[in-house]
């Protein structure tokens, strides 16, 4: 009988697990991380979009780069990461059973952190087992890790951030997203994520769900229908789409099996069926910790801080850090985590129907139901200002914890203030130098540079553009509205790329003068809408 001894074992090499490993290793703890996947990083390497938050939360950095950074740091700190290692059991006295290759190994550790993340929820409609019905996470894995196009014509079910972000990424991969459907009456994810999908012309169907996936051997089409307040289909509201793929993004469930198996106390909460644990992730069993999505579904940014808090707590638990050191670091991390848990999408606001922003401005109902802000509605938000000279228009109308735009502007044209969730203000009488840093820094792609030339009867709009191939200067096409409709002719005047823009190109289009407040996307003349 062979049981190997380890000091600190982390199960799961995602954002929470790696962060905990790094934090504990920094204090001198010897750490081993097991992950069942062939590649470390959890979901981070699928995240090709820029993250929200402030600088300390690695805002405006793309997820996969954060993953690279975590791996580099883990290696530097001497963390042992064992891949293709599936933890299949967790027992009393902190013993774990790991399948590595074709053998089952046993380890004991002084402390164990479970950071196994979450799995995707499913819904069962008629035809849901047909090939072509896939989880949004699976679509992301195919596209972003294996460079395989999941399908050609896709319907997305679920308007949370996962559904919105993956819809956008599907379009970036060259797929056509024919509709975004959600049973809820309001869009669940960030308005800015919805807007960047809507302006590409994707229609949103709220209070709708899938009735049937059609096809005998694989998905050939889908029928959706409207539902009433009791989630019953309303006859006569059916809509059919020819699709080859249906993506399902209807939430995540924490993968808590190991914790349950160990006998940790559990709690049924809004965030899922999760272990009852304190701020540092300490569970009811001393030495067993939980961090990241397994301890309650949140964003990767929060998972990284939770991981660090657990790592610090483990270091203290094992005697590597004093209580004072632990308390100090914990306070710092708690503040950082607290900042991320503010705003409209904070865990405490889940399920609440908000009507106004913190500033007292009425929220855009259209944004919540159709995915885009009304052309007149935008004018009541502080990010909007009318001016002839070039200036930023910030179409950020919900209180979310994010502020890179404020630091991106060296000319103080953008102000958020100390409160990270405040709406950005386009500062009156400031001098914009058209550097474009704000446009590229906005993780929500919600900043546009706008100017007018009354003598010429034209205006210019600079939009963030993350599709390939890039438009060419002089090219003719159309200006698209916030809802993705062709509203005017447009000529590409400038295409800017820069290392500082990190993959976001800035496309400046010239439009007739009345359209600078309305044209928010560009499409080449011969491209189908």
């Amino acid at each position: 009988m062979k049981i190997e001894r380890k000091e600190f074992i982390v199960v799961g090499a995602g954002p929470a697990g790696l962060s905990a490993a790094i934090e504990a290793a920094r204090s001198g703890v010897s750490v081993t991380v097991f992950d069942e996947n062939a590649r470390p990083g959890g979901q981070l390497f699928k995240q090709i979009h820029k993250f929200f938050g402030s600088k300390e939360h690695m805002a405006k950095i793309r997820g996969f780069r954060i993953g690279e950074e975590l791996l580099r740091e883990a290696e530097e700190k001497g963390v042992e990461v064992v891949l293709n290692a599936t933890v299949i059991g967790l027992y009393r006295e902190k013993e774990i059973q790991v399948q590595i290759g074709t053998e089952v190994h046993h380890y004991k550790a002084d402390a164990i952190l479970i950071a196994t993340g979450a799995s995707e929820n499913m819904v069962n409609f008629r035809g849901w087992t047909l090939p072509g019905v896939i989880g949004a996470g699976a679509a992301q894995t195919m596209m972003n890790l294996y460079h395989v196009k999941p399908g050609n014509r896709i319907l997305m079910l679920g308007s949370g951030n996962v559904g919105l972000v993956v819809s956008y990424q599907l379009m970036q991969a060259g797929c056509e997203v024919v509709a975004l459907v959600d049973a809820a009456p309001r869009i669940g994810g960030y308005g800015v994520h919805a807007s960047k999908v809507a302006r590409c012309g994707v229609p949103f169907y709220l209070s709708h769900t899938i009735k049937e996936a059609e096809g005998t051997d694989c998905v050939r089409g889908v029928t959706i229908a409207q539902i009433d307040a009791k989630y019953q289909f309303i006859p006569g509201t059916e809509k059919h789409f020819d699709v080859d793929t249906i993506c399902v993004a209807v939430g995540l469930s924490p993968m808590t099996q190991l914790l349950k198996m160990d006998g940790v106390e559990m709690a049924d909460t809004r965030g899922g069926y999760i272990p009852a644990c304190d701020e540092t992730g300490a569970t009811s069993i001393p030495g067993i910790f939980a961090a990241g999505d397994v301890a309650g579904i949140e964003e990767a940014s929060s998972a990284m801080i939770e991981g660090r808090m657990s790592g610090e707590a483990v270091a203290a638990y094992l005697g590597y850090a004093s209580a004072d050191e632990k308390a100090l670091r914990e306070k710092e991390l708690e503040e950082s985590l607290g900042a991320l848990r503010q705003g409209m999408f904070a865990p405490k606001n889940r399920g609440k129907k908000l009507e106004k922003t913190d500033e007292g401005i009425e929220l855009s109902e259209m944004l919540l139901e159709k995915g885009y802000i009304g052309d007149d509605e935008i004018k009541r938000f502080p990010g909007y200002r009318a001016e002839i000279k070039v200036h930023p228009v910030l179409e950020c109308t919900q209180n979310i914890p994010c502020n890179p735009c404020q630091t991106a502007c060296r000319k103080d044209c953008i102000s958020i203030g100390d409160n990270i969730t405040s709406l950005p203000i386009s500062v009156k009488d400031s001098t914009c130098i058209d550097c474009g840093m704000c446009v590229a820094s906005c993780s929500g792609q919600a900043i546009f540079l706008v100017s007018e030339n009354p003598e010429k009867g034209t205006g210019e709009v600079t939009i963030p553009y993350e599709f390939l191939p890039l438009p060419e200067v002089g090219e003719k096409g159309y200006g698209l509205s916030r809802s993705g409709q062709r509203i005017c002719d447009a000529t590409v005047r400038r295409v800017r790329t820069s290392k500082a823009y990190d993959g976001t190109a800035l496309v400046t289009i010239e439009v007739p003068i009345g359209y600078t407040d309305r044209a928010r996307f560009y499409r080449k003349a011969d491209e189908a809408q």
Partner: protein
Amino acid sequence: MFDIQEKLKEIGPYVPESDDDLLVCRCEEVTKGEIRRAVHEGITTIEEMRRFLRCGMGLCQGQTCGMLTRRLVARELRVPQSEMDVATSRAPMRPVAMETGGRDLGVEKPAAGGDAE
């Protein structure tokens, strides 16, 4: 917990629904109708359901259908979902080939002359 006999009286007999043939557990091919009918036969916990119909006992171990089954059973019993216990977690947490399971280094090797190699 509730009195099962009382509960069965309260929920009345099984009434077929038009989508009873819908699959819930795809690994073990268990339908919505089968699960609903089982409730009326007195299967009121997820653990019992797993043993009775094998739903959630296949390759994915209920990762996909666990929540669907829980919701369905709760609805049929007219109790809030939170009152339904979830399935017990047991090792192995993930499917393990018998061959691999047989190479468990944490298990004492049988004495020479035993059936195992």
